[in-house]
Structures are given as C-alpha cells and as structure tokens.
C-alpha cells in the first residue's frame, strides 16, 4: 500500500490551508452564539503601558 505522507514545501511547512492546520470548522457547520452571552463575561482591564500611548492619552 502506498505510504501517504503529508505534502510539505522545502522548509517542511505543511501546505494545508490555515483553516485546516488550525482545525477550524467548516462554514456550514460553524457554531454561533447569541451576542448577549458573548459579551456577558467582559473584563475591565488594568492596562500597564510601558510608554505613552501613541494616539490618545
């Protein structure tokens, strides 16, 4: 039986697309969620910046 190996380029990187490499879901099976739930666990951030912000103080 032919040994099927993953195709890769010379640097050894897989030629699978990003979605395949990262295990994303297919578009028709993509899960969704109500925005209410997605924004319910917001977190107030304590931002510690090492320098002055570039646009707005």
């Amino acid at each position, binding site marked *: 039986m032919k040994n099927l190996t993953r195709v890769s380029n010379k640097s050894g990187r897989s030629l*699978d*697309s*990003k*979605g*395949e490499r*990262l295990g*994303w*879901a*297919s*578009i*028709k099976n*993509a*899960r*969704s*969620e*109500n*925005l*209410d*739930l*997605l*924004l*319910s*666990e*917001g*977190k*107030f*951030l304590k*931002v510690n*910046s*090492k*320098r*002055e*912000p*570039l*646009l*707005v*103080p």
Partner: protein
Amino acid sequence: MLIKTKGYPLDFIQTHPVTLNDADSHLRSYVFKFNSPRTKLHYIVRAELHENDFFAIKFYAKKDRGSDRKYNNVIDKGDVANILVTSAKVIPYLLVEFPLASFGFFGSRTLDLKSDKIEDYTNNQRYRLYEYHIPQLIGTKTFAHFSYQKGSAYGLVNQNCNNIMQIEKKIREMLTYDYPDLVEINP
C-alpha cells in the same frame, strides 16, 4: 511587538445616513479612507455612531467593499501595524466633535476560502491583535478598557462619562439588542 509606526494619513470622506436595514440605535456612519503603500491597497474605515455616543469601528480593503464578507477576509499582505494605527486614528478625530464618545472593536471571524473553513468566534486572531495593540495606541486617562474575549470584542468607555460601569452596561445591552446574531455566518 511594540508599535513603532505612526500609520498613514487618514482622510475623512463623508457621513452616511442609516438605511432601512440598519439597527435602530445606529444613527449614522463616518467614513474615512487611507492608502497603504506597502500592500498597495486602499482601505475604508467606518465609524458607526450609535446611541449613547458609541462608535463601532470597522475597516476593510476597499476592493472588498461589495462583499458581505469584507470584514472576514484576510488580505495577507502584511502591514498590520500601520493598518491598525491608521484605523485607530478615527478616535482622536471623532473625540473633537464627540468628547464623551466611547468606541468598540469587534474581531470578525476569519474565513479560509481555500478550505471553506471559518475561525471560531472566541479569542480570534483579530481580537488578539486588538487586545495587544490598542493599549499601545489609546491610554487609560481618556478611556477605561474592556475586553470581551469570549466574543472577540474590545471596548473603550470614555472616562469623562459619569459612572463608567453603567455606560458600559448600557452600550452592551444596546448592542446585544440590536445585533444578537453578530457572530453568525451564513454559508
């Protein structure tokens, strides 16, 4: 990676009124444009004004303007820092007319057209870029920063408002009422 770039010039184009299909709380949109000499593409930035003086900031390559999935496409030509910095320049611009404005960025799910796959809505790559870069651009004197990792959103609530937590709650409730299916993708 610390941002060292100042971005590109951002030009205000016009104000768009809302359409019949727009959400009730969406009042009008401020449209800007810029050009990236590195990607050789033009970009459009939309600051969509809602009630509660809240702007949703969106941007996309102008060539994708006719696509329903313009916010989900990846151009993959680099220049991310410049594009982010330039798009964020709408904030100081709009603060002049709206000194109590708050702003939000929503990380759209990336589409991989090659394999017909889509990124999950939680902690996606756009959100991670916002989370890392926005604090370098926008400080905490003017805005309180909020992170919504589960929904890949980043919020800036104006510190000059009375009761920041109440304003944050009002904005969040407004958005969840008007855009309940924001993360849904139609095949």
